[in-house]
C-alpha cells in the first residue's frame, strides 16, 4: 500500500433536491397531477464544482472562504460522508474528522461508560479503549464526576469530556472544521496544545477556519473557496491576501 495522500480530479458534488422537495407520497402524487401548472423548480444544489487538488504526505492545508463557499462540504467529501456526483477522488490513509464532537452521549450512563461507548462509535475495540481510558479521564479532569451519570454534568463539563475522547486518537489524515475551543480559559489552552499534538502526528491535516492567525501559524498551504470552486491554491500568506482582496478589504 502506498503512502498517505489525497488526489482529487474535477470533483463535483450535488445535494439532491429530491431530499427536501418530495418528502411524502402525497406531494409526489400532487406534483404529478399538477404537472401542467407552472411551479417553482427546485434545483439540485451544486455544492462543489470541478474541484481538483492534490495533497501529499506532510502537508498542512488551510481552507478559506465565506460561509457556504464549500469548505465544510469539501471536508465531509474527503471524510467519505458525502458521495461525489462526478470526477475522481482517491484518498489513501485513515481519516479522522472532528466535526461535531458532542454526539452520542448516553445521559444515564456514567462518564467512564460514555468514554467506552464513544470509542466504540469511532470503531475501537473495548480492549483498545481500556488502554487509553485513564489518559482521557486525566485530560478531561472532571474529578469524581467521571463516575457520575452524564446528566448531572454542566454543559461545559460535557464538552470537556467529548473533546477529551474525540482527540484521544488521531489518524493519518486529520480534518478539522474550526479549531474547537471548549470550556474555561485554562482548558482552552490545554485543548489547543492537545489539538496541536494531533496535528503534529497526522500525515495530512486540513483545517477550515476564519481565523487567519491560526491558519498562518499552522498551515503552509491554503485553498480559497468561492461558490463551490477552488479559486486560489498556494502559500497561506498569499491566500489570505487574495481572499481579503476579493471581499474588498485591505490586506
Amino acid at each position, binding site marked *: 500500500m502506498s503512502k498517505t495522500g489525497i488526489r482529487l480530479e474535477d470533483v463535483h458534488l450535488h*445535494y439532491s433536491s429530491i431530499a427536501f422537495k418530495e418528502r411524502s407520497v402525497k406531494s409526489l402524487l400532487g406534483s404529478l397531477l399538477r404537472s401542467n401548472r407552472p411551479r417553482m423548480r427546485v434545483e439540485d444544489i451544486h455544492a462543489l464544482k470541478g474541484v481538483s487538488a492534490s495533497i501529499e504526505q506532510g502537508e498542512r492545508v488551510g481552507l478559506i472562504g465565506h460561509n457556504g463557499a464549500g469548505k465544510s462540504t469539501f471536508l465531509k467529501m474527503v471524510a*467519505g*460522508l458525502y458521495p461525489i456526483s462526478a470526477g475522481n477522488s482517491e484518498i489513501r490513509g485513515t481519516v479522522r474528522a472532528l466535526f461535531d464532537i458532542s*454526539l452520542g452521549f448516553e445521559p*444515564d450512563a456514567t462518564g467512564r461508560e460514555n468514554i467506552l461507548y464513544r470509542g*466504540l462509535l469511532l470503531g475501537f475495540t473495548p480492549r483498545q479503549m481500556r488502554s487509553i481510558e485513564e489518559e482521557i479521564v486525566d485530560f478531561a479532569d472532571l474529578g469524581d464526576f467521571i463516575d457520575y451519570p452524564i446528566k448531572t454534568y454542566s454543559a461545559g463539563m460535557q464538552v470537556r469530556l467529548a473533546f477529551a475522547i474525540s482527540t484521544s486518537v488521531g489518524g493519518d489524515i486529520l480534518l478539522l472544521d474550526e479549531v474547537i475551543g471548549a470550556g474555561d480559559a485554562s482548558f482552552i489552552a490545554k485543548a489547543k496544545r492537545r489539538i496541536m499534538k494531533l496535528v503534529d502526528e497526522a500525515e495530512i491535516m486540513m483545517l477550515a477556519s476564519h481565523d487567519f492567525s491560526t491558519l498562518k501559524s499552522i498551515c503552509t498551504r491554503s485553498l480559497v473557496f468561492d461558490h463551490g470552486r477552488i479559486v486560489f491554491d498556494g502559500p497561506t500568506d498569499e491566500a489570505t491576501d487574495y481572499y481579503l482582496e476579493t471581499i474588498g478589504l485591505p490586506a
Partner: protein
Amino acid sequence: MNQYLSDVWKVRYFWWHLSMSDLRSRFRRSYFGMLWAVMQPLGLTVLISLVFSRLFNQPIAEYAPYILSGIIVWEYITATTVGGALAFVQADAYIKQTRHPLAIYTLRNVVTGLIVMSVASLALVAWVVLFFPGNIGWSWLAAPTIFPLIAMIAWPLATIMAYIGVRFRDLPNALALILQAAWFVSPVYFMDTMFRNGGLGFLLDYNPIYHLLQIVRAPVLQGEWPTATNYAWCLATAAALAMVAALLGKRSEKNVIFYL
C-alpha cells in the same frame, strides 16, 4: 456482499452496544425490568385465549400456547419492521458523522428483538413442559433454529423498510395497515385448521409467516419435526429479501445522508 458483511463485523462492538443500550433504556426504572418481556405476551395470551377458546370451541390449555407462540413471533416481526422504517432517521446523528455500513442500524433492532424474543420464549417452554410433557422429544432441537431463521428474514426486511422509510416518511403509518393485513391472512391467532377447513389452505402453504411459525409450533406444540418445506420457504424468503436489500443498498446507501 462479503466485503459488506465483514465491514459490519468490524464494527460489531458498536452495534452490539447500541442494541444493549436500547434494551437498557427500554426496561430502565421499571420494577419488573426484563420480566416484562415475559409478562406482556403472557398477559395478552391469557386475555385472547379466554375469548377465542369460547368463540372457536378450543380447549384453552391447548389453544393458549398456540396463541403465545404466534404473539412472540409476530411481535418480533412487527417490532423489527416498524423499527426498521425509522432506523436511519433515528440514527441520523451517527450517519452524518461516521461512515459505518448502514445495515448496522437495522441490525441493532434485530439483535434487541432477538433477546426480548428469547426471554419471552421461556414462558412458552414453561407452559408446554407443565401442561404437555408428552410433546418433549428430540424434535425440540429444531425449535431454536427459529432464531437464526427469523433474524435472516428480519434483517434484510428491516433494511428495505429503512431505505424506503428515509425517502417516504409515510411508511411507518402505512406499515401499520400493511402489517394488520398480513396478520389477518396468517395463522398468528387463528388455528391453521380453520384456514384449511374454510378452503383457505393456500393462505398457509404460500405464506412464509406460516412456515416460520411451524418451525416452533411443529416441535413444541405437536412434538413433530418441522418439514423440509418449512425450512425451504424460510430460507428462500430470507434469500429473496437479502437480494432486494443488497440491490437497494448498492443504489442508495451513499445518498441516504442527503435525506436525513
